């Protein structure tokens, strides 16, 4: 069967010593960044891009992939143990996970997160392997109309599950897209909005905005709050295995989370974050057994579900990148950059022209997941030592890594200044109650959306109706509309707010 054959090519490639080492290295590095708040996989991958030149394509991508989902695992650890989500997709895990830790059940929470993620990772790998070929077939039918509509759907999907006012979130997306417009126009070669500053003619770097708004902005906001005493539950982390009852409760949540994550991860703009929020909402809505701990007070389903979802989402978010060449989120965008550096054009043809790369990557994802379970569960004590560092020492460290990272992007201190500016803006957003995440998504997808829109209009000679008359495109746009409508219905609106009251 084709699937087995493909997977075997993959495992052959992935099991070489070099590739195994790279996978391990990526996983360790990823967990480390996931554990440290303020430094994300985006920033790290961006910093490593120059070093990619020296490596071959396959080991390089394997390592980057390892970093990506290593960060997912690491982020959950801190979310549970000290209520500080190391990664945005761990925000939901912190809600019930931290409560479990406070009740001395940190072990169960961590195990639920780890094992749930592993299961989801395995399923995700199989799904990619099974669905990639037919999806690639579909991809060949995609024209610019379909790409544009797909990205619109992805952005709307992201907004729908974001907290806070819907209109504000959409506005933030558009602001993000507009910020992406600061670049040199592809067709005319005209620099736009660059105010004659040379560094701006290539556009603002994604990492610059991310570090400024999320990194600096968050540090400022944190320091603005009176010093909370962050208890660290390292001593109570024995009894690693969940109880029988915990297993029974968590199992269905893992399955549901995995399904949800696998589906949502594929959407552009989606991926792990979206999936974890959705899974939490779903688990909350599903009635548990009588006598179960209420949500927000330490229900293991609130950990197992989102964790499985975010890992499944992380895996399946590779699909649009590998098959269509569309990066579904920031990290993938950087991977696309890495592939381009190595001269590989991501898209439907990668599967046929570089099968060892394609399948090797997929196989090593599974291996990476295995390594992560091994790394995380027993070695938790070591990771946690890092967190006993008081915040007043931690945040300058984060600043140091961010600033050096920013400088090394282009060996130019302009990026440092830009990020400082975005730090200011980020804090402003925080005070005004505007969600920064939609802005970032809009920023990444904006340039591609514009390119596809213009191409579509040129080919169709100005015909806007083609977006609706082509069946695939129409279907995607209708789905986006449906999502919007569903969210605006009053009943769903209140449920959505409920879910996010706990997250705040």
């Amino acid at each position, binding site marked *: 069967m084709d699937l087995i054959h493909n997977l075997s090519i993959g495992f052959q490639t992935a099991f070489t010593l070099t590739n195994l080492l790279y996978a391990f290295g990526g996983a360790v590095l990823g967990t480390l960044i996931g554990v440290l708040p303020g430094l994300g996989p985006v920033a790290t991958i961006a*910093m*490593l891009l*120059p*070093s990619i030149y020296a490596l071959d394509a396959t080991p390089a991508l394997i390592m980057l992939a390892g970093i990506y989902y290593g960060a997912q695992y690491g982020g959950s650890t801190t979310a549970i143990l000290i209520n500080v989500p190391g990664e945005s997709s761990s925000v939901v895990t912190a809600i019930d996970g931290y409560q479990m830790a406070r009740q001395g059940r940190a072990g169960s929470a961590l195990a639920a997160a780890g094992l749930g993620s592993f299961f989801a990772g395995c399923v995700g790998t199989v799904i990619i392997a099974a669905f990639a070929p037919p999806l690639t077939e579909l991809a060949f039918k995609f024209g610019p109309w379909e790409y544009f509509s797909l990205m619109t759907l992805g952005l709307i999907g992201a907004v729908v599950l974001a907290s806070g*006012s819907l*209109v*504000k979130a*959409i*506005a933030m997306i*558009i*602001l993000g*897209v*507009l910020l992406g*417009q600061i670049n040199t*126009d592809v*067709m*005319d070669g*005209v620099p*736009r*909005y660059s105010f004659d500053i040379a560094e701006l003619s290539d556009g603002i770097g994604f990492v610059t905005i991310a570090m400024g708004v999320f990194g*600096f902005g968050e*540090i*400022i906001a944190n*320091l*603005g709050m*009176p*010093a909370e005493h962050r208890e660290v539950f390292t001593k109570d982390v024995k009894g690693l295995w969940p109880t029988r009852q915990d297993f029974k409760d968590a199992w269905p949540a893992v399955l549901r989370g995995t399904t949800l994550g696998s589906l949502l991860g594929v959407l552009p703009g989606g991926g792990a974050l979206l999936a974890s929020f959705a899974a939490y909402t779903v688990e909350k809505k599903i009635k548990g057994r009588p006598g179960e701990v209420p949500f927000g007070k330490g229900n293991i389903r609130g950990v197992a579900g989102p964790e499985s979802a975010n890992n499944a989402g992380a895996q399946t978010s590779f699909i649009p990148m590998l098959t269509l060449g569309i990066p579904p989120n920031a990290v993938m965008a950087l991977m696309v950059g890495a592939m381009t550096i190595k001269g590989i054009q991501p898209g439907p043809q990668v599967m046929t022209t570089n099968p060892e790369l394609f399948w090797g990557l997929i196989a090593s994802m599974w291996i990476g997941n295995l390594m992560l379970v091994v790394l995380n569960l027993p070695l938790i004590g070591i990771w946690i030592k890092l967190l006993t560092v008081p*915040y*007043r*020492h931690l*945040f*300058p*460290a984060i*600043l*140091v*890594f961010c*600033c*050096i990272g920013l*400088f*090394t992007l282009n*060996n130019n*201190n*302009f990026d*440092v200044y830009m*990020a*400082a500016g975005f*730090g*200011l803006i980020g804090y402003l957003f925080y*005070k*005004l*109650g*505007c969600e920064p995440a939609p802005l970032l998504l809009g920023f990444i997808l904006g340039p591609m959306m*514009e390119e596809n*829109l*213009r191409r579509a*209009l*040129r080919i169709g*000679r*100005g015909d*806007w109706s083609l977006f609706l008359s082509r069946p695939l495109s129409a279907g995607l746009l209708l789905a986006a509309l449906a999502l919007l409508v569903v969210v605006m219905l009053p009943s769903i609106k209140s449920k959505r707010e409920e879910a996010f009251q706990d997250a705040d």
Partner: protein
Amino acid sequence: MKVKSQKDFWSGLMFIIVGGAFAIGALNYRFGSSALPGPGYFPFGLGVLLAILGGMILFEALTIETEDGEPIGAFAWKPLVVIIVSVVVFGFALPRLGMVVSLPLLVLMSAYASDEHTWLGSIVNAVILTVMSWAVFVLGLKLTIPMWPIFLGG
């Protein structure tokens, strides 16, 4: 006309201004036509859209009741200024004074933003971080970062 939500009022205003600015800026570039969109096409449309959304938010802020008026609250001026200034100073100092001077400077300045700050702790932190950064970034990742001040031959 009472402001029902301070946050939304200012957000709406911000979006209107920013959207408008982008749209006006877009007029500098060739607009093109639907059949041949120019560089100004997309940003103009988006800017207008953003301004409209800003208007909606503003309207909501003036009409829809909220529990507590959603005040913006006090600005955390000390952390804000300290952190931003520290980062900018770092950016300025790095190419001129090298990492050996700029990094400790960054740590010492930014640590001041915390209300749990101690000078001794920050100095120790600065030394540790500088050494670690050198090890990871220069030795390990082989990145080119100016190490020493220019006047010392860096």
